[in-house]
């Protein structure tokens, strides 16, 4: 089963390789991983998606907690949460396809962020299923490349990971 894990770490050099190295060394899976500094840049927040049964995911969270620069770990599957992902898709579209591309973009409430006479870049945000659906519709129209950020997620309600 897929689990979304939020990890708050000290923003120091090498911390990402410690986290990634833990997964490879112990044979855990990483499906996606996003990371960026938060607050004043002293800390970073990692969101990672992993696959495993309850026992494996319990080990993953314990092992993450054991890393010295890790401040807090939360398995978001254990609580109500929201998740979002961002995707950019470049479509090579000329004449007859251009209207169709724009229509699909509109259906998914996405934005065109670059346009040339022969191409568009569409930005889509949402949950992963929405991104998949949008991509599947654009694909036959001539997708050149696409990139996704991987999930970011947050628990609902007033409590946060950074300050308890």
């Amino acid at each position: 089963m897929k689990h979304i894990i939020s990890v708050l770490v000290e923003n120091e050099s090498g911390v990402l390789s410690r986290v990634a190295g833990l997964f490879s060394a112990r044979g855990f899976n990483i499906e996606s991983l996003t990371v960026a500094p938060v607050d004043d840049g002293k800390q970073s927040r990692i969101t990672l998606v992993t696959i495993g049964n309850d026992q494996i995911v319990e080990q993953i969270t314990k092992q993450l907690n054991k890393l010295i620069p890790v401040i807090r770990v939360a398995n978001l599957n254990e609580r109500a949460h929201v998740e979002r992902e961002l995707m950019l898709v470049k479509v090579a579209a000329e004449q007859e396809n251009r209207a169709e591309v724009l229509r699909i973009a509109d259906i998914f409430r996405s934005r065109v962020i670059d346009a040339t006479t022969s191409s568009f870049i569409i930005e889509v945000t949402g949950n992963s299923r929405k991104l998949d659906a949008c991509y599947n519709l654009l694909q036959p129209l001539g997708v050149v490349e696409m990139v996704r950020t991987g999930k970011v997620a947050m628990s609902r309600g007033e409590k946060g990971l950074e300050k308890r």
Partner: protein
Amino acid sequence: MKLTGAEIIVKCLQELNAKTVFGYPGGSVLNIYDEIYKCDTLTHVLTRHEQGAVHAADGYARATGEVGVVLVTSGPGATNAVTGLATAHMDSIPMVCLSGQVPSALIGNDAFQEADTVGITRSCTKHNYLVKDVTQLARVIREAFYIARTGRPGPVLVDIPKDVTSNVADYEDMGGKVDIPSYKPKVRGHRRQIARAYDYLVRAERPMIYTGGGVILANASKELATFAHIIGAPLTSTLMGLGGFPASDTQFVGMLGMHGTYEANMGVSRCDLLIAIGARFDDRVTGKIDEFAPDAKIIHIDVDPTSISKNVTVDLPVVGDIKHVLKELNHQLENSEFDKQKQDYTAWWSEIDAWRKRDCLAFPQSDDVIQPQYVIQQLHELTKGESILVTDVGQHQMWAAQYYPQEAPRRWLTSGGLGTMGYGLPAAMGAKMAFPDEPVVLVSGEGSFQMNIQEMATLMQYNLPIKIAIINNNFLGMVRQWQEFFYESRYAESDMTFTPDFIKLAQAYSATGFRASKPSEVGPTIKKALETEGTVIMDFRVNREANVYPMVPAGAALNQMILL
């Protein structure tokens, strides 16, 4: 006070009460060596190989409970240290390794003697640092010592570029104080969990205590003895936990696991409550995991949450330091009606005693060929069991565990988790360095001994006399045993057809060598060695194809032992 990085390192070592450094110099650490030269409170031991330095610091740490300190140069110095770090990491031994690094400006340029030391050692240390700024140096060294010895101990490496050792920064003695917000190991066990342990204990009809290296690391032997005596249950220990509870105590049923005793393994397989204390359910201990302690509820006391329910699901975890948790638990047991409420264990003990009668460690004596087990028994008898006993890895290690019963902690030094051949000689050296007045005996195999044989020179240079018993079967015996049992005796590359003449070898190092080839020579050889001053190598030509029994084949259930 403005000091250079090298001066700060030495000041910090003094501040942290480090007295002995094991190391090997090279270009990137010359500034540090120059300060060590000027310092008269630090003793430096120049080993003959960096691996030797790390194992020596490890032996020092195991024998004393203090943090072992190592200093190596960049590149090959650091890579040579890796096996030692991995050994310490697997057995949770507190250690700080300082490694030199090429100047900051050259890092990443494939500079002379550059290695990505932090990258290479990431997975074989508890934590590691690259210090890029001299103003951070003192903080990092203090943190390294703190992390090494607290929580679940382990080795910490600090990689220091050469320019950082010559740059200057302010230094102030902080008495070792640190503040690491993201690292707060749990010491006290959860109150409610400890209270629940009481309920489990009261209900158990066949309780069994299973202790490990954590008892030694936590210095909790006294608390363990109190606990065990209140409960009155049989107690078994892992290889790493030997000495945590006196082997002569009637409640002790010996080691468990692959080469554990019949009574210990049968006991674990039959018990209805297993109380695991500072042990990590290693696969050498559990055998087939689905059939490990199948009827038991399990209580597990451990400071490291990742040890809990990693291999075997635990019913009642208590995360905390053993010393604190057992004190609390003992307090509860002593201030309650436990004695009256607990079940009657008479039937349980008669089962245990019946297994004991199998006398699984009995072995056939012979008049013309030396049995390796007999050598260990004689060593035990003639040292009155009072020596610090260090081993290498292989059959001789298991026999030493079985036939040299341990009465007290920190006197049994062995590489369990990584099983590093070549650990013994340097580790014995480290122990002798820590306790110059205590007898130190190394039990080694001719294979293992040759892996760090160069440290003989270090022993001589620093006048660290130890007695070395080589259980010489001219085989990589443990490998040969597996080949005999599981590969139809095809002894692929386990036959050491040539080994050096260990007597002459001893002489080459200005030490003494004795050989025993007949059982009648064993006792006299050991006596002579103990009476001889200085380091002595005893070369025991033993039964070449003796096996370690009992043995649980890999993957079999614990109660499926091959017995002699």
